[in-house]
């Protein structure tokens, strides 16, 4: 099973939200990482057939998804960034309705709804109106509706927004348990959501793909390394000219700086392990940032 995006572009007036993107997606968890406005949601909307591309094609098992139509959407589960719900319905009725438009047989739907509500810890409140739910509960309901039809392709746009750390952890566990036979695309700007569970990361910026691969591959591909330096406050500001500061921690007269640059910026700099967040920060740095490499 594979989903191929071939030279996809989407233009709005004079803005190219998605700019000639080609990706091949296979079963597993794929993290789509990019800052706000990178074009992730637009890309996802094309993949979910909500929006037609200006140019390019999306092929599911070598067939155009716009020709497959309902057949494609039948294997799709989607959680939008701005998840919508009916405030005056309860989760049972809401999922019952979604199940009906996903063409799930009522007897099957009943069982699925119970299993999913239990999996997302909403079974106890199944008869409560959704408008009384917290943000996290609503998000969990959104995840449940995306999984209703046991989709082969699961696309989740900012799925962990509103979830507390424990909920995020449970969510990651849930996804990991599903990943073996599904294409799961997780779009987020929160690095930790994908860092430990994604098999593949796609980095997106201003409509283009900057890089893609495993976390290790992405880290290897950036031309900088992470360094930690403990220095006094007067010297600390000068390091900003040498590289990209990822964190700084002031303690008394000293400051511990974590910096990304090609070579050790100082004789006392100690190498630190690069993370996916460093990759993200590197690619999303402002052009105005003084930077040795560029």
């Amino acid at each position, binding site marked *: 099973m594979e989903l191929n995006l071939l030279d996809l572009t989407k233009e709005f007036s004079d803005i190219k939200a998605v700019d000639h993107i080609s990706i091949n997606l296979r079963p597993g968890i794929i993290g789509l990482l990019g800052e706000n406005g990178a074009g992730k949601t637009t890309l996802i*909307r094309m993949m*979910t*057939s*909500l*929006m*037609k591309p200006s140019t390019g094609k999306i092929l599911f098992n070598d067939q155009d998804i716009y020709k497959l139509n*309902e*057949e494609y*959407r*039948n294997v*799709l589960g*989607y959680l*939008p960034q*701005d*998840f*919508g*719900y*009916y*405030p*005056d*319905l309860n989760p049972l*009725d809401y999922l*019952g*309705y*979604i199940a*009906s*438009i*996903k*063409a799930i047989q009522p007897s099957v739907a009943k069982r699925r709804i119970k299993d999913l509500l239990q999996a997302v810890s909403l079974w106890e409140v199944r008869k409560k109106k959704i408008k009384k739910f917290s943000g996290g509960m609503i998000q969990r309901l959104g995840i449940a*509706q995306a999984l209703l*039809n046991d989709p082969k392709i699961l696309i989740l746009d900012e799925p962990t927004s509103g979830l507390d750390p424990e909920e995020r952890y449970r969510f990651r566990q849930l996804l990991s348990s599903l990943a073996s036979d599904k294409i799961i695309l997780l779009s987020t700007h929160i690095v930790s959501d994908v860092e430990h569970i994604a098999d593949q990361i796609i980095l997106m910026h201003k409509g283009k793909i900057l890089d893609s691969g495993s976390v290790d591959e992405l880290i290897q591909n950036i031309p900088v390394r992470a360094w930690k330096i403990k220095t006094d406050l007067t010297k600390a500001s000068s390091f900003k000219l040498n590289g990209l500061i990822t964190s700084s921690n002031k303690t008394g007269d000293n400051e511990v700086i974590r910096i990304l640059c090609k070579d050790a910026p100082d004789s006392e700099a100690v190498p630190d392990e690069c993370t996916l967040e460093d990759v993200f920060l590197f690619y999303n740095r402002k052009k105005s940032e003084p930077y040795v490499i560029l």
Partner: protein
Amino acid sequence: MLFYELKKLFSRTGSKLLLLLLGSILIFTAIYNIQSTHYVQPDGTSLSGISAIRELKKAKSQWNGILTEEQIKNVLQTNQDILASNPEYYPGTTDINLANKVYSQEQGYDDIRDMINQSYRLFGQFDYYLIDRLSPNQSSSFYKNRIEGLENFLGSNKELTDNQKEYYRKQYQENQTPWQYTYQEGWEILTNSLPILQVLSVIIISLLLASLFSYEDKTRVKTILLSTCQGRSKGTLSKISAGLLLTVGIYTIVMSTYILIILGGFGFDGAFNPAQTNFFIGWESPWNISNIQAIGIMLISGLIGALIFSSITMFISYKSKSTVIASTVAFLLILIPDWLTNYIPNSSLLTLVKILPDQLLNSRAQLSGFTFLDIQGIIISPLVIMTISYFTLSILILILLYRFARRESLK
């Protein structure tokens, strides 16, 4: 899916309030018509409500029968006898007690009095006291006056074509006399009050349906719906079905309930009286139908009116993505055209305004007047044209809506 569409709609407080409002209007209208029925007792005091209905029915039923010229003579004689026995009374007297006492004796033949007044005015101004100036010997011209009045009207009318005039003459000649008259208070009240109830019902149905499609945009559920396998197809069909079911269901329930309350209270008598005996359709009506047929026509045309406005509202709700716009457009389309007829001079524009779909909610006006059209020599009622056209149009609108929704994508 249909079940969930209805559940979504009625889970909202606004929808429940609209239904409550409609129910209140229905109850209020029924109670108003019952309570505003008066019976004047011989001592000049009035009863109202159920007891008035009971007494009035007794009084009027005494005059049930075939309206032969002999019967008309009987009524005229009775009227003269009452006036003679109350010499202090004169039409327009300020002595209310006296006027009430006289009326208490006359109210039994009040319906026949109206027919006599309409007959002898010869299509002129209506005069409630005309009967007081008629002698029993004049009864023989009761039915002839209708033909004569028509000829006077057609003779002075320059707007009707020869075909239309011939048609009206034919209709009048084919009208079977003498007429059967039975106490028919319930049917008269229905004829008078149904149009306003139809208008209010259709407004509330339209307000209910105004959010049927736009709610998906407001709640942002639309992105999920469009990504599902049946969101565009069966999802849309289920919304349209819900809309149609609500329209037909609510309209039928409201009308049936109202009719049952009114006829249950006033009696079912008079169903087969000719429409010309019904004061609210009128002596001059060229429609050779009975009361029950007239109400049937009003109900059917009202239903078609409800369907066309529902279709338009659903379409606007879908296209505009706004409940407010859908509600406002429906509201204006229902109310504005009829108001405009007060200001538009006789012209083709007026003819056009008079066949807009709001007229389906006021089909009594079509039954009362000389409204038949001459289209290339064929004489046809605008009601027939409107019923067929707007029914067809509502289907086309819904088909178009479905086709748009099937191909929808986000911009």
